[in-house]
């Protein structure tokens, strides 16, 4: 009976009785959600422009963070390390385009997907060969202090993360809507063939989009790395970003953001309120089940393009 109560309405009563605690949990979830969105954003960019489901996004987050920390450990000042890491990510994008994507043009999506998993292994080994595999602290000078807003405790770091995430979305939106390259990217996302026929260089576009995804990965890497240290497990957040993706739709930037927020709040609330009743650690799969339920009603995700099939 006690078990049944803890599984069903018990947590709801608790929520009603202690709204401040619920607000804290939800806010915490929202801020984690922003971090998920940052990772998911990289996926969406690449999927939109090249139709590649890039599993390596998670490891790109790890790789960029590792490069940044590694450079800083060698005495490079923060700003220079940032610039150098951006350069590294651009070079990486060029190499990926030349070595992996170009020979695989026109293959099945699943082949491209598998090749990005191969890339995941490669980058993981490569990053750790160069920079070593021990846990590193990353400190780029983002303040971290508890802040009291109307009785709810928030970390300033999380607020910074949210602000940076929001800024990045705005910058990306402007980049996509207003600049010539952004317009070209949208054209490619819409229709490869048509884009080619009006003279948009597909290869350059791919390099650009992988570079942008690399920079998004760098931002995500900085945020996650300063929060929990730079280590191998950083690449596993890719697995956290996947439910965000299918929830929001593979092709939608706003979807990635809103999906991230829903998943973040959902899994935190479920973990805190329902988790204890079933033994805890449900965060790992709850996001997937939540996303799955959404998918049953909207198979293309919340904001994905409607899938039209013709025979």
């Amino acid at each position: 009976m006690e078990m049944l109560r803890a599984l069903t309405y018990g947590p709801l009563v608790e929520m009603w009785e202690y709204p401040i605690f619920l607000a804290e949990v939800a806010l915490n979830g929202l801020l984690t959600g922003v971090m998920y969105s940052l990772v998911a954003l990289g996926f969406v960019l690449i999927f939109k422009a090249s139709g590649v489901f890039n599993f390596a996004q998670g490891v790109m987050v790890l790789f960029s963070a590792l490069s940044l920390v590694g450079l800083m450990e060698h005495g490079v000042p923060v700003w220079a390390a940032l610039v150098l890491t951006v350069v590294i990510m651009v070079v990486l994008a060029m190499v990926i385009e030349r070595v992996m994507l170009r020979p695989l043009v026109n293959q099945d999506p699943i082949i491209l997907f598998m090749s990005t998993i191969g890339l995941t292994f490669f980058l993981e080994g490569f990053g750790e060969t160069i920079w070593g595999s021990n846990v590193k602290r990353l400190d780029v000078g983002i303040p971290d202090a508890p802040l009291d807003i109307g009785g709810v405790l928030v970390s300033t770091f999380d607020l910074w993360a949210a602000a940076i995430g929001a800024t990045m979305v705005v910058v990306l939106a402007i980049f996509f809507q207003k600049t010539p390259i952004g317009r070209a990217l949208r054209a490619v996302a819409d229709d490869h063939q048509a884009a080619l026929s009006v003279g948009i260089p597909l290869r350059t576009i791919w390099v650009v989009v992988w570079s942008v995804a690399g920079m998004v990965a760098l931002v995500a890497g900085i945020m996650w790395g300063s929060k929990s240290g730079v280590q191998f497990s950083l690449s596993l957040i890719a697995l956290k970003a996947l439910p965000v993706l299918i929830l929001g739709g593979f092709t939608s930037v706003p979807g990635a953001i809103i999906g991230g927020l829903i998943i973040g709040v959902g899994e935190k609330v479920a973990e805190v309120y329902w988790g204890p009743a079933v033994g805890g650690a449900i965060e790992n799969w709850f996001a997937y089940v939540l996303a799955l339920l959404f998918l049953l009603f909207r198979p293309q995700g919340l904001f994905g393009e409607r899938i039209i099939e013709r025979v």
Partner: protein
Amino acid sequence: MLYREAGLFKTTYTADQALFPIPLDRYFVLAVLAVAFLVVPLVANEYWLQAVLIPFLVFSMAALGLNLLTGYAGQISLGTGGFMAVGAYMTYKIATGFPDLPIVVAFLLSGLCAAAVGVLFGIPSLRIKGFYLAVATLAAQFFLSWMFNKVPWFYNYSPSGTVTAPPRTLLGITVTGPEASAEVRYLLALTLVAVLALAAKNLVRGRVGRGWMAIRDMDIAAEIIGFRPYRTKLLAFAVSSFYCGVAGAMSLFLWLGSAETEAFSINVSFQVLFMVIIGGLGSILGSFLGAAFITLVPVFLTNAPQLVGLSMPVDLQKHIELMIFGGLIVFFLIVEPHGLARLWQIAKEKLRRWPFPY
């Protein structure tokens, strides 16, 4: 000249419908089976059996299962590890709950349990397609490994949370548990794989397999010509999960001996998917080639530095192994996206014309 399909005169329908209609194929399969059953156990030592051959057989079984689902029915799944875990844990429960039941029956029963779970997690495939489905099947992976970790009933309330294969005999010989010799475990695994592979080969050329392929090629068109998508897709999930479940049971009872849910993590799912893709989608032979490739490459990479007399720190070597492994996968996908089975087909083509290529 060496290999040809032409010039075979068949006088009966049985000959025409044989599993391997070409005599050369038939002899070749028989020869491979004979070598595997008779010669290998005599020649191979403990290390080879335990580190190479038994894992190869276990993964062939899993790859076979996934190939039926992904290669033949076109549904991408990343839940293989979860379905293998179902097989392993259910065999453990059945074997410890009913000690007198023959162990092979326990294997097959747990395969059926895995099939039921597979159908459950296959239901979304009726509505979700492609990568959305792939990610959705990850739900199965994470949920199942969480469940086997958190529900003590599945590991008989053992404090460490691990399951250990109990010793069981078959025809008076100990086949599982710490006492069983590697040769015996190898032979049992080989028998299971051989029988189920032949069954799979038979399945995919019949009505069921054709239904799967029709659904794979275009599900709407398949529906219009009369294949029921939900029945066909769920059957694919069921059969595939059955194979994966048996593979999981084999990996616990015949290979690892004792395991935690970590042994069936998402990495296993990816590994099996690699085997299927590198081996060749939609090919029974490909499952074996892929499994051989993915199990042999790490063994080779681990031993290669010592062979050439190179010594380096263990963690550095691990990283370089990862790099080479990842690089090789990308390389193979670029060189032959249709997998090793396709290379075999090309080789046969060449043999057919040899020594007079035109």
